[in-house]
């Protein structure tokens, strides 16, 4: 006997992600999910820019890592709350882990939660965490072919960042190929080029984050007031 089913295998994850999204909306907190390969500069970008974004924005960080609490230690003195999630070998964060992470933060005291996902460009994109925006990082030393090799992050990201641009003169990286590949996937996604060494692009990134928080809070306020009147 054949039984027809149409069930999303990630249903459980997506349901918990929806709960996270609701908890964030009710507390009026924007949430950004940062994804990129190990060593592409996720933590370094936060270290360089959290001091500029604060104190105007109150920011909590959820640092995902396979083991160790090093990223959380690097960021602890730079934000308004940090929580480390050790995935114990798993190569991505899932919504349930983020739910626990959110429970460790005082959401009502925050404007923004930044999730540093586990270093990996492949499966973190599959797992909705409840974020309001996804950001993908590529770094210059990884090589110019990464957008073509990882199309999904390009297709789904709300923002892309190319990090370590100070290394452009020192490593073979064909920027023309990088741009052409990226624009063959999407011509409407914002790309910000940064370097924590030269400081290039850091203001542009901070601007994007401030605008994202403002817009997200507007959207959430409308959703929350709508769900109250329903």
């Amino acid at each position: 006997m054949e039984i027809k089913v149409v069930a999303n295998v990630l249903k459980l994850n997506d349901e918990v992600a929806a709960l996270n999204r609701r908890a964030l909306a009710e507390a009026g907190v924007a949430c950004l999910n940062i994804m990129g390969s190990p060593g592409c500069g996720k933590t370094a970008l936060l270290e360089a820019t959290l001091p500029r974004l604060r104190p105007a924005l109150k920011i909590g960080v959820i640092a995902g890592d396979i083991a160790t609490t090093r990223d959380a230690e690097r960021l602890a003195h730079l934000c308004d709350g940090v929580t480390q999630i050790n995935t114990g070998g798993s190569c991505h964060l899932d919504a349930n882990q983020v739910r626990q992470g959110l429970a460790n933060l005082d959401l009502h005291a925050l404007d923004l939660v930044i999730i540093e996902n586990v270093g990996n460009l492949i499966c973190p994109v599959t797992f909705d965490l409840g974020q309001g925006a996804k950001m993908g990082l590529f770094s210059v030393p990884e090589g110019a072919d990464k957008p073509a090799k990882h199309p999904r992050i390009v297709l789904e990201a709300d923002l892309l960042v190319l990090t370590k641009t100070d290394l452009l003169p020192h490593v073979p990286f064909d920027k023309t190929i990088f741009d052409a590949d990226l624009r063959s996937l999407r011509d409407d996604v914002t790309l910000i080029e940064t370097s924590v060494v030269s400081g290039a692009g850091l203001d542009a990134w901070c601007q994007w984050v401030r605008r994202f928080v403002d817009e997200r809070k507007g959207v959430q306020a409308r959703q929350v007031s709508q769900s109250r009147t329903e």
Partner: protein
Amino acid sequence: MHEAAITQALIEQVRAAMPPGARLQRCAVQVGELEHLDPYVMQTIWQASTANTDLRGAELVIERVALRVRCGACAREFTPADRSIMLCPSCGSVKPQLLSGTGIILRSLEVERT
């Protein structure tokens, strides 16, 4: 290795969908091309995780779902020839909206009453 996490989630979902007292013979799942899931790895994990359980011996059938997009400028639907080139064949824009090619969906169970 997210094949492990996905295959475990699949097994849980299969168990939840099984009618009481039935024995699973086959389970069909659709996997989007952009999920980057290796079907051989999924098969290995499926076999290892179902052996010596209520699901032992059941076959896993994995169907790959091709990428399909809609042009955000002119609404033309197309299958990109290369998954890294999303150029619309009608208007030349590169504003793809994903229609299929992502997602992992349990489609059917072949069961035997015991």
